[in-house]
């Protein structure tokens, strides 16, 4: 496998992303959206499309840049550092990966829409408080040549901004993945007021009509399409969380150097030094798992499950520690809304739950490692 170090191209990609995001989407951008009661910035998304980010996983023939999962992870990581609010993972990673599993004209057109920044996708899988695709109970009942879908999904990230939604529903012999426009009759969305100020929805389906054309992949076989998409999303989310941890850690180390108490910089206190050093070690070890997940998805996607769950589990644990230490080491100011650290803590918590929490991925690792 390719080395886990960034290639030159990857380093350039990261640097240019950083340059753009520091300007276009520092943490104050998210704060501004929140204060304005918004969860999405179409202008920012259009710029991402222009730079080819929305097409990072779209084949070139569909207008994409097709840079691969490692590159997608690098972009997600840079976004994480400043808590960039966009539908990147749901659309450019999850939906694009799902759609490219399917070789038909509709999927190609949909991929082109993603690459061009014209279509925002959301993934509607979970029905309970914990991620569990296999437990989906929503039913798509056969009705003439098509289906009638009824039920409710929750924690649909980017669900309010989305033009289309990938919906997992139970059909006769198994699970089927539908690709529906969010304005179809019978679909009702309500916004969730998430702590991280990002977009999420509850979506109810009231006898929503779907045809065979709306099915992504094969009826009764959602997982062939969905599993790669979920794993791509989990890896990118892990990368984002790595970025969130790095961003929080960098703020904390800066603070330790600058802030004085009892006449000296608080970074001179050995107890804080050792905790900061330990945290840095955790971020380094997690960085390896994140890089490895990207490489594995690019080079051996059928065998990437362990790598992906490893990355998501590690990233969850590391970012949780990073934001906890971040708030504690900043003291009172870290608790104020006027300071950015709270935003990191909130995003870390939501990202920890999305697409499977630590325990979910730890169980996958344990199964594959026969523990």
């Amino acid at each position, binding site marked *: 496998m390719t080395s886990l170090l960034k290639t030159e191209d990857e380093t350039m990609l990261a640097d240019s992303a950083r340059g753009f995001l520091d300007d276009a989407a520092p943490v104050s951008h998210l704060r501004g959206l929140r204060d304005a009661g918004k969860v999405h910035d179409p202008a920012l998304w259009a710029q991402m499309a222009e730079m080819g980010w929305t097409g990072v996983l779209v084949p070139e023939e569909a207008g994409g840049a097709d840079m691969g999962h490692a590159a997608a992870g690098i972009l997600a990581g840079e976004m994480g550092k400043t808590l960039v609010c966009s539908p990147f993972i749901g659309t450019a990673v999850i939906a694009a990966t799902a759609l490219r599993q399917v070789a038909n004209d509709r999927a190609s057109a949909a991929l082109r829409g993603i690459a061009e920044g014209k279509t925002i996708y959301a993934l509607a899988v979970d029905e309970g408080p914990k991620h569990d695709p296999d437990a989906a109970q929503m039913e798509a009942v056969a009705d003439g040549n098509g289906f009638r879908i009824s039920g409710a999904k929750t924690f649909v990230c980017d669900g309010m901004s989305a033009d289309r939604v990938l919906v997992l529903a139970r059909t006769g012999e198994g699970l089927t993945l539908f690709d529906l426009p969010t304005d179809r009759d019978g679909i009702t969305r309500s916004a969730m007021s*998430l702590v991280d100020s990002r977009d999420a929805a509850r979506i109810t389906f009231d006898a929503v009509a779907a045809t065979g054309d709306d099915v992504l992949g094969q009826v009764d076989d959602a997982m062939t399409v969905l599993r790669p998409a979920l794993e791509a999303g989990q890896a990118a989310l892990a990368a984002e969380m790595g970025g969130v941890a790095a961003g929080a850690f960098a703020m904390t180390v800066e603070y330790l150097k600058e802030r004085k108490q009892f006449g000296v910089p608080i970074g001179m206190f050995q107890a804080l030094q050792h905790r900061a050093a330990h945290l840095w070690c955790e971020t380094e070890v997690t960085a390896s798992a994140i890089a490895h997940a990207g490489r594995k998805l690019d080079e051996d996607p059928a065998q990437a499950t362990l790598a992906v769950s490893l990355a998501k589990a590690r990233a969850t644990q590391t970012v949780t520690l990073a934001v906890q230490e971040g708030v504690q080491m900043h003291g009172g100011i870290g608790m104020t809304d006027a300071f950015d650290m*709270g935003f990191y803590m909130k995003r870390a918590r939501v990202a920890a739950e999305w697409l499977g929490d630590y325990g979910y991925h730890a169980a996958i690792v344990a199964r594959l490692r026969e523990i």
Partner: protein
Amino acid sequence: MTEALDAFRAEVRDWLEANCPEEMRDGGSGEENICWGGKRWQFQSEAQKVWLERMAAKGWTVPTWPKDYGGGGLSRDEDKILQSEMRRIKARSPLQSFGIWMLGPALLHFGTHEQKAHYLPPIARGEVRWCQGYSEPGAGSDLASVQSRAEPRGDHFVVNGQKVWTSYADKADWIFALLRTDKDAPKHKGISFVLIDMSSEGVSTRPIRLISGSSPFCETFFDDVKVPREQVVGEENRGWDVAKYLLTHEREMISGGGGGLLGGRGVGAMLDGADDPVLRAGAMTCEIDALAMGLTLERYKDMAKTGSVGDASAMLKYYGTELNKRRNEVMMLAGGSDALEWDGAHGSLPADWLRSKANSIEGGTSEVMLSIISRRVLGLPA
């Protein structure tokens, strides 16, 4: 002795039965049910008002304070009986305040007779509400690095400066503050413990928004505020002694609420059927530690009866607050995506979770507590 206590218990029981209004027997202890008192206090109900008045008349809003200063003059054992009888009928606390928890003990220990007679009874009756002015911007755990000045000018001070983390400053009538009265003295000297009327000209407040949402905390500004010099508690320039004494009280108070349990409550149901060993192990361990912490609080209370717990109280603050943070993490994890929404399926849980992160910062950080323990309890070299 035991007979006298038994008689007292019977008397308390009868009195409570006759005097505690039915509406005040709901065990209501949520933030919204607390009676804080003060000049601008709006009683939630007539019952709340009556309950306060009756208890204040007995001196039982501050049962162990001397009768001369509005207290009940009870012994510790009698107080324990009063509390247990109140718990028995689920009676609400008639009054809570920083005046009771903090200024009272400081005045009782350091105040003159005139100060006690003047300030304590209105606290006991819930007529004057106090807030605390210790922290300053940029000072953090280094409380002694007070920059706000109280310049002596004849019989009064002129106060200038800024305090932060002054809880309920926007609702308080008076503030007790640490101010620098001698700018040339070494850091821990030259500080005085000063009482200031919040309605004085030049005092203003601004609320602080926390990551958990709106909060009782404020910033408080002093702009050429005139304060009579007799409003110093203890000796002038010896305010640090008063502050240290109170920090111990504060520690015990903050930790008191920290021993919350998971069991038998929401989390049991939240965890029901959860097959995740990580979550289950976290919840089990947290519950074990919380139960043991609850027992430790009892043990320390008993210890305090016979002598002083002293610096070991730093343990209660440290362990209680860290535990409360863990408990909130467990509950958030158990709640999953349902617990990610402000005011969602789990109500205030997300705000409580975020708010809990301040527990190990306010009233002395965990780091300060650990340093106190290592030096003063374990005797490790400074």
